[in-house]
């Protein structure tokens, strides 16, 4: 019998804080290629190991190795690289635009570009993502026009959301991108509902729920897992573990669990844990889960392990709570550099072509920005009408809103 002692509150804290040396030695990183690829139909209970390791394809030498390799052609990989370069350039420009007062707010993807860019390529038309604010790569990879994204960020007259939504809260139904909510986690259970609807209609469409590591603590995460476990609809539940939730490290949300992926086991849902900075691993894992969904084998949960290299948003300064150098010490590296190295290693890319691709991405972003700014930005140019404020509250405007709209003078 263990000794009785007074209890104490165990408050998890990161080992390192500003002023300390970054240290990720506690993060166990398996060799690329080391993790098995089970048959998608395998009993979830037999796949538990996959929630405690990390599926990785790209090794240190830039080679694609192991059972998860080979899901993409060199052409597709080059396109993937282009998407990530575009997203990074887009982020950089929008950050600057925010600092210039052209918009009120922005959220970037620095270091996490592979997760959304690669995953999107495992989907097909008709599938629906239920994203958070940090998956704009889904739009880029789906070919959604950059200028429309910028119009949204600038809340100008061409903003498809008509100025109503905070910047980066995109919606793009035709591109498989559900309307982003500012309330964390709510989309996760909606994704399950969407997949249930597909199952009720018997239509071959799937839904993908996205959530951050910190947000897994929210109630909607549980609601999603419960309903997914019960009705087994074609849904993929992704967790983007970028180590931070604003200022709180992932230990606060994860608590005593080994990994976020392990949360799925209590629901009989198979879970993968995947190198989120490895474009090939992200795609292969996504494709595996998609296979399961399309074969009506039910939900899959995937934890993508990555690192939020930038601030939480333009309102945040991470140096207040973590060492400035932590991002550089992150052991899974930079997703763009890793894919670039792979393409070079297999003889499908060169340093020169990379420089050129970067320049092209920037050009494309700059051109789009010009176009968007020519329309307007938050405080200048053509802006959405105040009239828009009263539209779409309901399909048909009820008398009290008409009255209020008249009061504004429209």
């Amino acid at each position, binding site marked *: 019998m263990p000794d009785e002692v007074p209890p104490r509150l165990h408050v998890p804290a990161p080992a390192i804080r500003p002023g300390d040396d970054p240290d990720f030695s506690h993060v166990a990183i398996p060799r690329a290629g080391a993790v098995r690829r089970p048959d998608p139909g395998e009993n979830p209970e037999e796949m538990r190991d996959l929630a405690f390791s990390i599926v990785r394809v790209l090794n240190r030498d830039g080679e694609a190795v192991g059972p998860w390799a080979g899901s993409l052609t060199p052409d597709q990989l080059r396109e993937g690289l282009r998407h990530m370069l575009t997203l990074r350039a887009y982020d950089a420009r929008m950050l600057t635009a925010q600092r210039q007062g052209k918009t009120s707010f922005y959220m970037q993807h620095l270091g996490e570009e592979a997760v959304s860019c690669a995953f999107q390529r495992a989907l097909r038309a008709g599938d629906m993502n239920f994203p958070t604010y940090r998956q704009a790569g889904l739009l880029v990879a789906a070919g959604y026009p950059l200028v429309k994204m910028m119009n949204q960020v600038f809340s100008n007259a061409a903003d498809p959301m008509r100025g109503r939504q905070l910047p980066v809260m995109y919606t793009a139904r035709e591109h498989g991108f559900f309307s982003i909510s500012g309330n964390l986690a709510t989309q996760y259970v909606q994704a*399950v*509902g969407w997949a249930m609807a597909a199952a009720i209609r018997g239509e071959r469409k799937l839904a993908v729920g996205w959530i951050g590591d910190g947000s897994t603590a929210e109630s909607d995460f549980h609601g999603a897992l419960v*309903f997914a476990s019960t009705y087994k609809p074609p849904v993929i539940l992704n967790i983007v573990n970028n180590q931070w939730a604003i200022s709180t490290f992932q230990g606060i949300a994860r608590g005593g669990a080994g990994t976020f992926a392990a949360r799925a086991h209590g629901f009989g849902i198979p879970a993968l844990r995947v190198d989120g900075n490895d474009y090939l691993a992200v795609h292969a894992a996504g494709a595996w889960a998609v296979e399961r969904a399309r074969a009506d084998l039910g939900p899959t949960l995937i934890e993508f392990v990555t690192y939020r290299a930038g601030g939480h948003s333009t309102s945040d300064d991470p140096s207040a709570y973590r060492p400035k150098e932590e991002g550089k010490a992150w052991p899974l590296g930079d997703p763009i550099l890793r894919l670039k190295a792979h393409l070079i290693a297999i003889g499908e890319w060169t340093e020169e072509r990379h420089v050129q691709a970067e320049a092209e991405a920037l050009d494309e972003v700059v051109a789009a920005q010009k176009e968007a700014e020519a329309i307007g930005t938050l405080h200048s140019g053509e802006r959405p009408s105040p009239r828009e404020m009263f539209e779409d509250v309901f399909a048909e405007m009820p008398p009290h809103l008409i009255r209020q709209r008249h009061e504004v003078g429209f």
Partner: protein
Amino acid sequence: MPRMTMIEAIRDAHAIAMEDDPDVVVMGEDVGYFGGVFRCTAGLQKRFGPSRCFDTPISELGIVGTAVGMAAYGLKPVVEIQFADYMYPGYDQIVSEAARLRYRSAGEFTCPLVIRMPTGGGIFGGQTHSQSPEALFTHVAGLKTVVPSNPSDAKGLLLAAIADPDPVIFLEPKRLYNGPFDGHFDRPSVAWNRIEAGEVAEGRYEIPLGKARVVREGADATLLAYGTMVHVALAAVEESGADVEVIDLRTLLPLDLETVTASVAKTGRCIVLHEATLTSGFGAEVAALVQAECFYALEAPILRVAGWDTPYPHAQEWDYFPGPARVARAIQTVMEG
């Protein structure tokens, strides 16, 4: 015309909607095999199969949250929250999601969803089976809120709610499920299907949302009520002998302000009734609107008769419930004012 209880009328509305439109799906706690604790969905699973009407886990968040996803997909979910008192775990999905989806996506996604919930007291249900949370919905832009007071309205309003392209909160006064209740708890109750007031037309018909109904014409004062309180109002008027106009609001949002102000303009006196707690109840909104619209017509202050500002008690139910005696006193007061 056949006579039905409100339960049967609601069941009938479901069956018609499901028959007419394969996208109408019904879900909630115990609504499937069993047909709901109040039996409002009895027989639907057997008739339409378990993909169209099914039991859910006990998670109001999950019920509303998945329904939002289904509605956005293109289905028309009609979900049941077992008691309105249990809607709170789903409130975030109602307020932050269902209500705002059309707006924030500029119409790319919509949320044609009906959330049914038994509401109100009078059944000795204590504080967690008696609440009337309508004001928590009327404050939220993007929601419509409906409260029927009889079987025929329940059916026509529910069919209209299901046909509506936006989320509708459908509050069913549980004390009216089996028969009218005028607050005289010590008198025997009559079942709807034994009286003319329980007549319900066959087949599909819709009662438009946003239209009130003058239940009793009168010249001396206007009594505004909805749900169970419509019957309490009628009893109180009867007993008071005054010539009071009684209006059943039916839809709280959008409110039929025209019918309301026309009546108050005529009578010059107004009382609003509800079971919900007084402070910040829907009566406050009605009083605020009526005093603004009918200021120069009003001959006395607008009175509110409502539940006390306490949780709904068990043993003291009839001291809490705003019954005909309190309403009659209010009629007297407003007539003297």
